[in-house]
């Protein structure tokens, strides 16, 4: 006698994965396909044991060291731009290499591969994002903002702002203000 079966591969894989994780006595949630959130961190040895056990049943842990490193680069850039007053003394490449202990070439390659932008472009995006916040706060003049963000002049910042957003800084400021006014009017009309 023959019987014919078909597989719900996803459901099967989930069952197998659960069985393995349970056998390690771990607390976890499965979020979406292929992501396991562990409630507690694992020791290096335990992590290797788990990786081996999973590999035996055909499940492989994705190496996310590159994604982690790219994330660290982002955080370092944000810290550099927002908090580190001494950062302008160094070239960005030297700064990042020094903080993260990798060559800039390596960082740069990993970053572009995982985030789809270059480090240089990410720095510009972050600076313009900061400039936007300062423009909206409206406490500093435009040339003070340029100085704070280490642009040689306000026209240099202005040009980079326009290139990144397609808007001039003053146009941006006007639009955001009007948007807020509109929202306030709408909220009042609801009440």
């Amino acid at each position, binding site marked *: 006698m023959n019987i014919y079966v078909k597989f719900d591969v996803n459901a099967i894989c989930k069952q197998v994965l659960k069985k393995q994780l349970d056998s390690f006595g771990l607390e976890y949630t499965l979020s979406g396909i*292929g992501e396991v959130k562990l409630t507690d961190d694992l020791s290096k040895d335990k992590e290797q044991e788990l990786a081996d056990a999973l590999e035996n049943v055909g499940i492989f842990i*994705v190496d996310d060291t590159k*994604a982690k490193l790219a994330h660290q680069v*982002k955080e370092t850039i*944000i810290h550099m731009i927002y908090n580190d007053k001494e950062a302008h003394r160094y070239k960005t490449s030297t700064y990042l290499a020094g903080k993260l202990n990798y060559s800039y070439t390596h960082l740069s390659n990993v970053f572009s591969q*995982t*985030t*789809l*932008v270059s480090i240089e472009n*990410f720095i510009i*995006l*972050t600076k313009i*994002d900061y400039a*936007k*916040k300062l423009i*909206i706060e409206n406490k500093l003049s435009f040339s003070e903002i340029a100085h704070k963000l280490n642009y040689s002049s306000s026209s240099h910042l202005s040009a980079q702002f326009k290139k990144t*957003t*397609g*808007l001039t800084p003053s146009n*941006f400021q006007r*639009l*955001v203000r*009007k*948007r807020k006014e*509109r929202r306030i009017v*709408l909220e009042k009309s609801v009440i």
Partner: protein
Amino acid sequence: MSENTLYIALADDDADDRLLFRNAMENLRINTELSIFNNGQELIDYLNSPNHRLPELIFLDLNMPVKTGMECLKEIRGDSIFSDITIAIYSTSSSERDIDETFISGANVYISKPNNFDKLKEAIAKVIEMNWQYHTSRLAKENFLLRI
């Protein structure tokens, strides 16, 4: 990160433009999934229906019958459930008044429809890549305004 996909919706009443758009989305460096709606009402009905993944990014043609892009924009922005969605308006109009009005009504992106395919491709790629940065980095999404 490559296993993530960006879910995109497009509403355009012009069949040629829809096809052009679909073609322009090919060969992007980001995995995307695209749902296409033939007009604004279809899109709104879809968004309001239960149990489905919300798009991260919506492209809206400004000039559509039944429900215009502007009306869709205002409806979507009027509901906080949709506040995480990036809205890109595209139109043949390059009148400053139209552009101002879309940004003030809560659009993130305004694209003046280019008349050649390569430029359109470039514009779409720029919007998607920029949106991806807002999606994956600590950038202030409420200040995401882009004019192409």
